[in-house]
């Protein structure tokens, strides 16, 4: 039986999630929500994750908003997102000010280049993990490649890319769902 958190607990839960994750906090959010505090079942979390990933905006922020709203209305959303963002924002700004003092240090700059290069690898691994979970079809591979080339090779504005690709892609998604339904499979 999932528990119902009050506002203070929402703040505290997301506060802990916010400060415990490096390089993205989604895995920690899952542990907090499902395993530790039992606010959600595993299935509910998966549902919520797909919402967070599909809607625009930072995934974990969307998740905190929806969970807050679900348990405590808009005040719950405010508590959850402030818990999530407060400490990381303060910490990152302190780090940035320290960096400013040592910005001329070659050691620091080389370390940061190394971190950025490693972080690029983390993002590539994320996209690979997402790609493995994606429904494999020719059209989705083509759309993926077009989105990639549009921003990386052609440097097109994202607005135009989304405006052109999203409707087509959603229609293709719709057709693939319908095909499966006709074949009697449940997607």
């Amino acid at each position, binding site marked *: 039986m999932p528990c119902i958190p009050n506002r203070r607990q929402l703040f505290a839960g997301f506060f802990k999630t916010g400060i415990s*994750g*490096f*390089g993205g*906090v989604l895995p920690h959010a899952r542990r907090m929500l499902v395993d530790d505090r039992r606010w959600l079942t595993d299935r509910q979390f998966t*549902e919520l994750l797909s919402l*967070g*990933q*599909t809607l*625009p*905006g*930072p*995934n974990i*922020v969307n998740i905190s*908003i*929806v969970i807050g*709203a679900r348990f405590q209305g808009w005040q719950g*959303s405010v508590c959850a997102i402030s818990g999530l963002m407060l*400490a*990381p*924002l303060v*910490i*990152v*700004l302190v*780090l*940035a000010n320290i960096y400013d003092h040592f910005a001329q240090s*070659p050691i620091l700059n*080389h370390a940061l*280049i190394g*971190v*950025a290069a*490693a*972080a*690029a*690898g*983390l*993002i*590539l*691994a*994320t*996209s690979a993990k*997402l*790609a493995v979970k*994606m*429904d494999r079809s020719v059209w*989705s591979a083509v759309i*993926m*490649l077009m989105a*990639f080339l549009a*921003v*990386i090779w052609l*440097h097109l*504005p*994202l607005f135009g890319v*989304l405006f052109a*690709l999203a409707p087509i*892609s*959603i229609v293709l*998604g719709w057709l693939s*769902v319908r095909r499966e339904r006709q074949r009697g499979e449940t*997607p």
Partner: protein
Amino acid sequence: MTPPSILELFLRFCLLSLMAVGGANAVLPEMHRQIVEAHGWISSAEFASLYAIAQAAPGPNVLIVSLIGWKLAGLVGAIACTIGMCAPSSLLAYGAGKLWYRFSGSPRRIAIERGLAPITIGLVLGSGCLLAQTAGGHWQTYALTAGSAVASYRSGKNPLWWLAAGALLGVLAMR
């Protein structure tokens, strides 16, 4: 180059918020295009450094936005950009949250999920490549990127390990 006003930054990130399908890590190329390429407000190398600092702090990936705001307009800029990046999409999520559950399992929702997923993946892949280019662009840094990609894909270890290894290798490669 004239630095942007806080209002301009805020509005730019408000728009970006609604375009960030797949989260903050999907829109690095767009941020880079606007902030570095189109206006030259910060350099490509600074962009990479800010991203690295954001990764060195705990918390969501959206912190890169806070740091861009901080770099261009100080503390107020950091807060304005963070709110700009979070508020519009949060309002949307607040409204859509209830609908999402109501349409659980509906073909329409599945169509939207399936349609947006490949775009998200293409954009996140693009973000990874962009960051790899801005972070040095030597064969050494590309090798580091490739190594961390494979390591983090294959092992569930805390990503902090790969970031720390990156910092260490970055310093060692100096000499």
